[in-house]
């Protein structure tokens, strides 16, 4: 069954079609769209599992859309980066289960079907982005998940949501234009849009336009991935957006930027071209600054979702340190950390959403004493916070350990210090949260009167918390799974 070739395009088309059909079929009904969306997400996850099985036993494979030869038509390629579609679909499914009650209260009734449609379209755009092997198709899918992300951020009722969404939109559009401009330059130089062919034609060419295209693509995807200097759109967008949306944004949409960057590195050869070295070291040091800056900012935040948003910036910094080091274990660690962070961060955002939904309070000091009133959600959050800080056998540790190891292999001891320090700071604000939840008497009347969130809210949080432990234990098998992709992108480690 997993040999049937047509699963690959369906991985992207299914959620997109499901998303478009949601408002058409269920415009007025508030509940059915949720079940429909969860079903579509489940089917997509099943398709992703089929593709993963085929990838494991027969390696990368590609699919010519419309039957045309790769140069003339669009070629979809499924490799380890594409395998990120499976965790993405599962996370979106859990976020959709979470949003059944959450959205019923925060979004006007007739717009509920639009919400579920936009989430599915976002998932479809993301899956398409991960599997496409064509440069312009990459841009189109990026636009799909970006437009739906801008709209999802703006669906929250508070006025700052509109302003945050507009900032996100302007910066996102700017980065998309940079990507489109670089696609134009690559087309002008090579005449083809297929990534593999373009890579062959561009082989090690250190001409100025190649550098320009590399810089444009890297900057564009860095903005989408909220790397340090261009990250300021992320905190407002994630804090203002509804909780399941900020979970999807932090876990998946930001990682798409990273995946895009990996595609560009694939395009520009295995690290020989003249311009790649400065870019890699730039990514390394910006990542280091992002890690420390993000962790420190998260420590001083009062609003719980702002805290989690800044911790996303810190973890993105981790990933870029790994990519910048360009040694096999560092890049492997970065990729694995991308998945682990997606799981942990979505658990945290959903737990925070459940707390805000039950008590209406966002300030950490107001959420004191919730440990007794909302035991499941509070335990899920506390457990995942410890996992996020990188305490071993849990998910945060695998990526951090591998990246630090890669740093030593690359002869750079400084990132090891940055990683350990950032880990401590992350642990600090984690403990501050746990301290507030469990060891402080309730400070507000609404925390005393609040009751545990409905099952559809705390169950996904617990599932993700358990997953963050399981992923930690499955660390080494994930690293072996990712190794061939690292080899393909970075060629022989420098």
């Amino acid at each position, binding site marked *: 069954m997993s040999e049937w070739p047509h699963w690959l395009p369906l991985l992207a088309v299914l959620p997109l079609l499901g998303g478009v059909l949601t408002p058409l079929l269920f415009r007025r009904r508030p509940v059915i769209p949720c079940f429909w969306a969860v079903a579509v997400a489940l089917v997509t996850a099943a398709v992703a599992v089929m593709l993963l099985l085929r990838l494991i036993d027969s390696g990368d494979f590609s699919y010519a859309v419309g039957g045309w030869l790769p140069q003339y038509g669009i070629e979809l390629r499924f490799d380890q980066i594409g395998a990120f579609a499976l965790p993405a679909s599962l996370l979106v499914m859990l976020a959709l289960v979470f949003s059944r009650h959450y959205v019923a209260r925060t979004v006007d009734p007739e717009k509920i079907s639009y919400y579920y449609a936009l989430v599915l379209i976002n998932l479809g755009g993301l899956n398409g982005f991960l599997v496409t092997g064509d440069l*312009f198709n990459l841009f*189109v899918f990026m*636009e799909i998940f970006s*437009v739906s992300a*801008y*709209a999802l951020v*703006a669906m929250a009722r*508070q*006025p*700052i949501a*509109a*302003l945050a*969404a*507009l900032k996100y*939109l*302007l910066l996102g*559009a*700017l980065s*998309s*234009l940079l990507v*489109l*401009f670089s*696609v*134009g330059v690559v*087309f*002008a130089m090579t005449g083809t*849009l297929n990534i593999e062919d373009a890579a062959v034609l561009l082989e090690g060419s250190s001409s100025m336009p190649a550098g320009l295209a590399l810089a444009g693509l890297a900057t564009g995807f860095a903005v989408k991935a909220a790397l340090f200097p261009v990250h300021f759109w992320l905190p407002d967008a994630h804090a203002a957006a509804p909780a399941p949306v900020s979970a999807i944004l932090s876990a998946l949409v930001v990682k798409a930027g990273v995946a895009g960057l990996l595609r560009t590195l694939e395009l520009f050869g295995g690290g020989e071209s003249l311009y790649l070295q400065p870019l890699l070291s730039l990514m390394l040091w910006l990542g280091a600054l992002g890690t420390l800056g993000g962790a420190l900012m998260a420590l001083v935040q*009062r*609003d719980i979702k702002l805290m989690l948003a800044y911790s996303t910036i810190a973890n993105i910094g981790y990933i870029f340190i790994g990519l910048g080091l360009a040694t096999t274990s560092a890049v492997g660690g970065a990729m694995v950390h991308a998945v682990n962070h997606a799981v942990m961060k979505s658990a945290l955002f959903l737990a925070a959403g459940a707390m805000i939904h039950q008590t209406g*309070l*966002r*300030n950490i*000091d*107001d959420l004191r004493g919730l440990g007794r009133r909302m035991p499941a959600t509070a335990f899920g959050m506390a457990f995942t916070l410890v996992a996020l800080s990188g305490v071993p056998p849990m998910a945060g540790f695998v990526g951090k350990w591998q990246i630090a190891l890669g740093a030593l292999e690359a002869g750079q001891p400084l990132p090891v210090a940055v990683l350990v320090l950032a880990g401590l700071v992350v642990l600090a604000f984690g403990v501050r949260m746990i301290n507030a939840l469990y060891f402080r008497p309730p*400070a507000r009347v609404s925390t005393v009167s609040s009751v545990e969130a409905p099952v559809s809210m705390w169950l996904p949080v617990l599932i993700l918390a358990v997953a963050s432990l399981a992923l930690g234990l499955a660390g080494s098998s994930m690293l072996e799974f990712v190794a061939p992709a690292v080899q393909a992108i970075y060629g022989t480690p420098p």
Partner: protein
Amino acid sequence: MTVVSSLASHIDYLVAVSLFLTGAWILLTSGNLVKKVIGLNIMETSVFAFIVTTGMVDEGAPPLVAAGLQGPFASPLPHALVLTGIVVAVSVTSLALVLILRIKAELGSVELDEIALAPKADDSAGQSNQRGSADE
């Protein structure tokens, strides 16, 4: 290939790039949100102009391969890309305009510095400063 002649032959690209930079300048520096969207559109137009010129051929006929027409044809690929790009630009701009409308309705103004000065309209900020300082 003296500098001047290479400048002359690449004049189309240079115009596109300078248009891109002016659009970026408007987007980054103007305080009015609508002006920012206009700047964004200028940048989009410049990128589309750049892509179309890559597919241009001197004395080239449009890529209509009807029986009678011949001569060097312009390459059809950039045209298809730009068509798609234009539609993306329309969608992003329309979403931006609606957001601006909502900001105008809810935050009262379209000028960034006026919005920043206006007190945070939503309640969450009001709640945090009315409570005493945490005894941390």
